[in-house]
């Protein structure tokens, strides 16, 4: 039911028709998710999926939800946020205004986390650019409505991340979901951006991109690292996921490690 040729043809079709480039994504994770898509869309094989991509205009937006990994949580790896708060924010505070890029923001949990921590650090003049390749994720992120159970779990991570208030101060609860205050998103610009195909994003002071690069093969990782390097101001910061590293990249020498455990790097000043 799953042939490698059909897999390559589908990925190629998606690229030429929609310019979504999955050619350098790790194959086994994509394959697993396509197997789930076969079940969900009642298809026998990938050829049928490809036919649908070619002939049904409404199909691709549904398929893309399967092709990207959207798992995320608020204050995931609290140590990362704690380190940002303690080691990075005091420095960022000295800038008159800040630009932060959350690359691969998925359904927005990390955006809310950042917005809360910036607020508590007394940083008011900032813009967060939150990007993802899946427009449906961005729509959900804009609503800032999350499952109560998920937010309840995030509450302890919020304290571990050094939260100074109560997470409940930031949302309204209703039935089994909660809505975060829209104020938290007033400095956030959501936009559709692909790390695989799109260009530099602008002069950023901090880029946070976590658990995105693990799905990319080496050449694509390298592209993204260059993109980040070019998008950061001198002395700008880069935060990666707990299992991602600059260590094997070509931009390694341009950055200094600020927190090894929490994967926080700073672009070094080079005369």
């Amino acid at each position, binding site marked *: 039911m799953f042939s490698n040729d059909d897999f390559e043809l589908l990925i190629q079709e998606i690229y030429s028709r929609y310019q979504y480039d999955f050619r350098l994504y*790790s194959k*086994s994770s994509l394959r697993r998710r396509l197997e789930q898509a076969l079940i969900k869309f009642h298809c026998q094989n990938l050829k049928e999926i490809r036919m649908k991509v070619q002939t049904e205009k409404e199909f691709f937006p549904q398929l893309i939800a399967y092709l990207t*990994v959207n798992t995320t949580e608020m204050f995931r790896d609290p140590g990362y946020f704690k380190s940002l708060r303690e080691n990075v924010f005091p420095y960022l505070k000295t800038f008159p205004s800040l630009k932060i890029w959350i690359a691969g923001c998925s359904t927005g949990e990390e955006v809310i986390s950042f917005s809360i921590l910036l607020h508590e650090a007394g940083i008011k003049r900032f813009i967060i650019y939150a990007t993802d390749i899946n427009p449906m994720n961005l729509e959900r992120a804009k609503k800032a409505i999350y499952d109560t159970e998920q937010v309840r779990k995030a509450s302890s991570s919020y304290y571990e991340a050094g939260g100074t208030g109560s997470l409940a101060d930031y949302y309204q609860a209703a039935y089994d979901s909660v809505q975060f205050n829209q104020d938290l998103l007033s400095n956030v610009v959501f936009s559709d951006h692909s790390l695989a195909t799109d260009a530099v994003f602008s002069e950023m002071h901090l880029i946070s991109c976590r658990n995105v*690069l693990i799905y990319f093969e080496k050449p694509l990782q390298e592209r993204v690292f260059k993109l980040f390097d070019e998008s950061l101001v001198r002395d700008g910061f880069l935060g990666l996921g707990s*299992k991602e590293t600059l260590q094997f990249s070509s931009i390694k020498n341009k950055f200094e490690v600020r927190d090894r455990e929490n994967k926080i790097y700073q672009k070094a000043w080079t005369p």
Partner: protein
Amino acid sequence: MSHDNLLRKCISQKIRVIVVGTSAGGIDALKRILPSFKDSKKLSVAVVIHLPARGPNLIPELFKEICSFKVKEAESGESLQPGYIYFSPADYHLSIESNETLSLSSEEPLNFSRPSIDILFDSAAYSFESKALGILLTGANHDGTAGLLKIQSKGGICLIQDPSEAEYPTMPQSAAKSLSANAIMNLKQMKSFLEELSRSSYE
């Protein structure tokens, strides 16, 4: 299948990668079998053991002392090398890619587990087909059964720990019911089998 026949089968299929899955009771069981791998120019081993999600992963350190193979936590994108035992990090799935690299993923837990044994086994089945050997040990859930079935369907070889000696029999029992494994062995038999396999020479 008898011990000798199975060994011949592994050699004729040129087993390259051994994937091991375990859960509750797994550390003691792994301590019995992982030291069996001696200097080998052909075999790589990847292990998923269910761990609590938080805190540092101390497992690789624990095994470095007692294994002849080099032991490390798998890193995203690194090449699969012979003579190594790779452990999945806590809270990430581990896969073996067809380009012979390792990859990590934070996809949803499967069978309430991240790392998931099924995901590792499934990836090894696709990437190495008949050159993959799956070993399922003690555990208190059903992770691993679907993965072993995938290894079997791709022509690979499946070993299951004898549930009657497993500290937690649910996991090996679930697999033993769902597929006819190439062999069901106790840890002592498994140890000597793996020693012989890693000693035998094939290209």
